[in-house]
């Protein structure tokens, strides 16, 4: 039952691959096929559809656009915007910009990682939270800042940051409880 590498996350990722409907991206591909230099735009649009870029999707893009798989994969892994793994329901972007750094973002990262029991870049087992970082969220006067699904929070300290996470967690569980 257990994968020899003990990596549960990979397991779940591969599990979802079978449900991927490759036809969803036909329109994007047809629109850009044959257009010189459009690979990044295609990857962006396709990621908008699936939320990330699963391997079968990258293969399909290379096939349909007539590009080498290495070029597609190479480009997808070069840019930080592209994700090869699915993200949690709440994407936490902790700002690592200079203003946030000097205002203590590192301590917040320590506290959040401890609270969520994951390392930066990972997703919690329940699929609720992904902890990630951003270079600068552009609200430096609110430093230190984190953004959760597009909403900025700041100025933070370790305590405030954990409280925000706990509030979301509690709200999610309340919702789930109500449904039953």
């Amino acid at each position, binding site marked *: 039952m257990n994968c020899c590498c003990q990596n549960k996350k990979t397991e779940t990722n591969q599990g979802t691959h079978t449900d991927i409907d490759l036809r969803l991206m036909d329109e994007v591909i047809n629109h850009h096929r044959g257009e010189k230099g459009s690979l*990044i735009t295609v990857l962006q649009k396709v990621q908008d559809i699936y939320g990330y870029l699963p391997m079968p999707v990258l293969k399909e893009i290379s096939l349909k656009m007539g590009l080498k798989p290495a070029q597609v994969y190479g480009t997808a892994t070069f840019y930080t915007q592209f994700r090869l793994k699915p993200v949690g329901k709440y994407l936490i972007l902790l700002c690592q910009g200079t203003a946030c750094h000097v205002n*203590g973002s*590192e301590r917040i990262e320590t506290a959040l990682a401890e609270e969520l029991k994951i390392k930066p870049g990972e997703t919690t087992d329940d699929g609720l939270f992904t902890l990630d970082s951003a270079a600068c969220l552009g609200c430096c*006067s609110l430093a230190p800042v984190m953004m959760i699904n597009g909403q900025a929070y*700041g100025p933070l300290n370790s305590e405030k940051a954990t409280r925000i996470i706990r509030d979301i967690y509690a709200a999610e569980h309340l919702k789930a409880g109500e449904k039953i």
Partner: protein
Amino acid sequence: MKKIRVGLGSCGIAAGGLKVWEFLQAEQANLAPGVEIQKTGCIGMCHHEPLLDILEDDERVYTYGGVTPEKAQEIIDWHLSGQGSLEKYLVSSSQQPNDYIKPQLRIVLRNCGVIDPESLDDYRRQGGYKALAKALKSMSPDEVLAEIKISGLRGRGGAGFPTWFKWNSTRMEESQPKYVVCNADEGDPGAFMDRSVLESDPHSVLEGMIIAGYVIGAANGIIYCRAEYPLAIKNLQTAIAAARENALLGENIMDTGFSFDIRIKQGAGAFVCGEETALIASLEGERGMPRLKPPFPSQRGYWGQPTSINNVETFANVAWILEHGGSAFAAIGTEASKGTKVFALAGKIKKGGLVEVPMGMSLKEIIFTIGGGIKDDHEFKAVQMGGPSGGCIPGHLLDTPVDYQSITSTGAFMGSGGMIVLDETACMVDMARYFLDFTQKESCGKCVQCRIGSKRLLEILESICAGEGKAGDIELLEEMALQVQSASLCGLGQGAPNPILTTLRYFRDEYEAHINDKNCPAKHCKHLITYTIDAERCKGCGICVRKCPVNCITGAKKEVHHIDQEKCIKCGTCLDVCPGKFAAVLVN
């Protein structure tokens, strides 16, 4: 009352400006019937967001800060009752601009926070597209170029290359088609000048690009904008559509026979793509890897064709220069650095935000007069300029004027305009480590010096910060820094060692303290500090016990608490939550 304006730049939205806007939209008929409500971009006073302006019938403008829907109602009622301004929330006014606004000279930011960025009419009311009409209808491309040359405008993207020269070399190339590219990749962490201009005044950038197209003989412009700026992209799209509808873009602009169009290409998050040759590779859909110059993009750029690449702020200056004349621009600033520069003030500063000042103003005036000094009245330690390729300028150089030469002579770099203020709690070894961590991750990997050199430099800095520094580390850093600087292919690698070299130059004693005494003088480096509780001051309130994420604090209520150093992860939560009146958590 004529108009109510709400600041809805990214910073305004982050601070809660949308709530004020939605409230005003819903309640306008009751609150202030007949008064226009307008959204605007960023005026630069990010520390006071959300901002609201009241424009009275006599054209006076009153700016209020920290506004909530309730406060907005109070302010509007007050004004409507004819009692003048509501002092308790007022932060500035047109007759009495505050210390933040008064010393500024706004050319690039002339319309930011004034006009509705989505309205072409608003831009035109401020004189927008007059410069374009003047250029197309009454000047030859050579005359426009001459005016830009007289102005002395230098590129605002970092290197400060004369703009006329770049335009001219693209103009001299014969191959067609040619391209105008606007570099809106703004990758420096802690810098947001370009974002603000794009969000708040997109037409000024379009106008500059069209004029550039006219000079160099290009029919196509591309804005390479980072995807992390969704509002900037949206406002640019709106502006481009409006310009097309009004014959300001597309075929036969203003009936002059000149045709030019602009499209947006979104970046995908790679710092190195701000470098012009990497940007071109990215525009072509490839990995953003720089290449050797020459040939310069002006000779062989996008798809091998002549391409002039300029920064957002550079373009935003162009229309002003043509409207007011090159010599008016050249009259501002210093001998070799003309005009103004926009800076993003952030870090440990009281009043952070965007400021635009004439070149040559001293760092002291910007940080202390405009920025109001250091947060919580801490002590100034250094200011970081130029982002990851820049450096830290210490206190004894605060009289340095901001112009290209003077900043370069300190070992830092003008860069695109990020100005991060540091106080005594900043560890300078950690600052160097922080920037190397950034450049190491962002190195594209093409050249060995940058890819491996930045990694090795980072490893040494990490070990020093972890208290594992050895004798000889400083010398090794210096030697390797010079190698990476001289042998890297592009500006990323060439600039990467600067944060190390400037901190070594001005704060060598901190490196020595880390290495020799295993001590971080700023009490920042996690591995070199311990959190303890002062038995005298602790009142046993239990807050830290409850909040500690790893439960390493013990102690009953009303008894002195104790931190288990074995378990402590040094997250600082106890320090954050210990009530200020006790201040019992000590960092040593």
